[in-house]
């Protein structure tokens, strides 16, 4: 308790310092950089996705100090995750849209390729540029093989292992070594299956989940596989290493360690099953930590709520542990009538205090290194996530990635379904043929060109 208090005090002090610093310099800085004052009374439209319990109100409150300080109003619009891809693409192509939008980190290169967004290269130095972010996160603002910075990272998530401390204890497994590497990961699930019959050892979502590929790829990376070749010219999803990674997950199902009925669910529904006490081990993002203390979140069963542990992802045969790092960026539309005001808002959302406050509200991590560190220091469980983010991996920033991810998602879904006994018979040959098809499809998509 005292430790937590000390951290809180330190965080507040830092935040105050940051605020103070900003206040002193803000007038000089903005004027110097933009050469003109912000127009008061204009309204910026900001598209956001359902990130927090009351997405629109929460964010509107978050930007209230910005309006108070600059006189620039912000109209927050909520766009559902289901439609956001269409909406943003259409807005970029049609030139009819908001001033700023949130975009998933893996979507940025595609949107950038449409040509509807502002290149922020000249401005990002004002918020510290590349140096202020972890490498993997900064990369999400770029397009491979192209000059330009098309987005600013907003908030970050990475995946870690959630487990039930009480279940591990009953199974007689030491949490410190339970998820060290892929072998012990499997052994732990086996021990749970043998000794704790009233809970399913592990579960993950299937093809309905938007993030199925994020669920599978860490195991592929662990085994030395990759989604694309280093130059992003060719798919490597059917390499023997990648196949070993996908098979690891399939084998969990066939050996009864993976509750196959979870495959019909999407990510959040599986999350609720862990919270409700049906699953002992689950891989998820930091937002679940934030919901433990929320008494009104009754998807938690009392036992689960009291016994959450977080461990880093297991290391593979190569000795390194991989996890997916994602989150959302902010992009400014080229057609905005108020580029300076829009940038000022992005800058405000990138200030350390706003980053911490908003990330906390979402249960995410700030995108910037300094505030990230602060949140990471706030608890043992948060620390596991902080480390995951630093070593996290994401996909090659190329415009076709979204399509390739969809192709992989389809195939991974087929493979997991067949492992669950509801598709073609599960065998190494099935996996291979599905992955070959995925690679062929991806290569076709990579070969697309403007000509």
């Amino acid at each position, binding site marked *: 308790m005292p430790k937590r208090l000390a951290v809180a005090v330190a965080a507040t002090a830092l935040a105050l310092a940051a605020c103070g610093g900003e206040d002193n310099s803000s007038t000089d800085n903005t004027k110097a950089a933009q050469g003109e004052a912000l127009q008061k009374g204009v309204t910026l*439209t900001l598209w956001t*996705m*359902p*990130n927090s*319990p*009351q*997405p*629109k*109100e929460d964010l509107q409150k978050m930007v209230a100090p910005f309006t108070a300080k600059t006189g620039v109003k912000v109209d927050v*619009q*909520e766009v*559902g*995750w*289901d*439609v956001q891809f*269409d*909406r943003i693409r*259409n*807005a970029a192509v*049609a*030139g*009819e*849209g*908001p001033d700023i939008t949130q975009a998933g980190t893996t979507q940025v290169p595609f949107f950038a390729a449409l040509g509807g967004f502002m290149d922020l290269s000249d401005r990002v130095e004002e918020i510290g540029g590349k140096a202020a972010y972890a490498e993997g996160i900064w990369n999400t603002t770029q397009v491979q093989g192209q000059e330009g910075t098309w987005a600013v990272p907003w908030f970050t998530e990475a995946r870690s292992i959630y487990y039930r401390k009480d279940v591990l204890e009953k199974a007689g497994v030491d949490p410190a070594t339970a998820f060290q590497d892929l072998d012990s990961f499997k052994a732990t699930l086996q021990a749970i299956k043998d000794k704790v019959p009233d809970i399913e050892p592990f579960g993950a979502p299937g093809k309905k989940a*938007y*993030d199925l590929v994020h669920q599978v790829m860490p195991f592929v990376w662990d085994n030395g596989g990759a989604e694309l070749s280093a130059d992003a010219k060719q798919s490597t999803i059917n390499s023997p290493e990648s196949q070993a990674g996908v098979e690891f997950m399939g084998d969990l199902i066939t050996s009864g360690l993976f509750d196959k009925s979870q495959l019909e669910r*999407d*990510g*959040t*529904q599986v999350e*609720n*099953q862990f*919270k*409700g*006490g*049906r699953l002992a081990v689950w891989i998820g*993002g930091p*937002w679940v930590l934030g*919901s433990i203390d929320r008494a009104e*979140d*009754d*998807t*938690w*069963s009392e036992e689960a709520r009291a016994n959450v542990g977080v461990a880093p992802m297991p290391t593979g045969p190569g000795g390194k542990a991989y996890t997916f790092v994602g989150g959302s960026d902010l992009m400014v539309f080229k057609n905005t009538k108020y580029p300076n005001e829009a940038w000022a808002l992005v800058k405000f959302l990138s200030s350390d205090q706003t980053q911490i406050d908003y990330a906390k509200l*979402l*249960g*995410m991590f700030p995108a910037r290194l300094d505030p990230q560190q602060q949140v990471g220091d706030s608890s043992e469980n948060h620390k596991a996530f902080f480390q995951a983010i630093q070593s996290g991996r994401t996909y090659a920033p190329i415009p076709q990635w979204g399509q390739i991810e969809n192709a992989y998602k389809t195939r991974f879904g087929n493979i997991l379904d067949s492992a669950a006994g509801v598709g073609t018979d599960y065998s190494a040959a099935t996996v291979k043929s599905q992955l070959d098809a995925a690679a062929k499809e991806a290569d076709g998509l990579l070969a697309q060109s403007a000509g």
Partner: protein
Amino acid sequence: MSARLVNRGLDALTWLVLALMLSPILWLVLSSLQTDGQLSRGAYDLLSPTFDAFTRMWQSVDFERYLLNSLIICTAAALCATAFAACAGYALARFQFRGGKALSLGVVGTQLIPGSLFLLPVFMGFVWLKQNTPIALFDTHLGMVLVYTAFFTPVAIYFMRYFFIAIPRDLEEAAMVDGCNRFGAFVKIVLPAAAPGLVATFVYAFLFAWDELLFVAALTQENAETIPIGIRNFIGNYQERTAQLMAAGVVSTLPVLIAFFATQRWLVKGITAGAVKG
């Protein structure tokens, strides 16, 4: 004796079928009265329902806006479609046209084109109009009303024509003898007689517009989004508000249900008349 038994049995069967048909709706209502935790665990507590989801759904998503948009757009579109169809259907029924067959073919033809084929061009057309002319169709109520009116007018004409054919010509002719012009006769005599058909057409168009989700997803941004878009905001990447989703399902069904029960007498009559005439 055995005939009576059979009759009893068939009565019971009828009620059983009805119960089966209604049970999913009952389940929707019951689910909306539970909490997220009860829903995700499948542990319903039917004895202590809570209206929590119904109160919270308006805060977590701006559902009022979607509901209002749906009401405005669907009512306007259904009205327009019915009005056009009444005029066109009457003309087709009363004046001898060569193209009766062509009309039927045209109606079926419009139904044959999948939305996916012309959605993108409509989108581009709307955007072009917005950027090059003062005609605001993209992301406006007007634009969606136009689209839905165009969708349902052909079928509506087909519908209405049969109702008008069924109305005896003598009625109008009598009115015209009494000093009405043709338009007067149409308004005073024919329309009231065709009222069930008008109501049926209206409700039918309204229901379909209420249900449409492909076009509204592409043609609107923030001003004219309807319920099918709004309801999906309850499904998030980082959280799911299941109870509120169910509550929103109830709320989106309620207006159409009320409209249905208010007009069902005429509606059933209308569909019936349409069916008998083929």
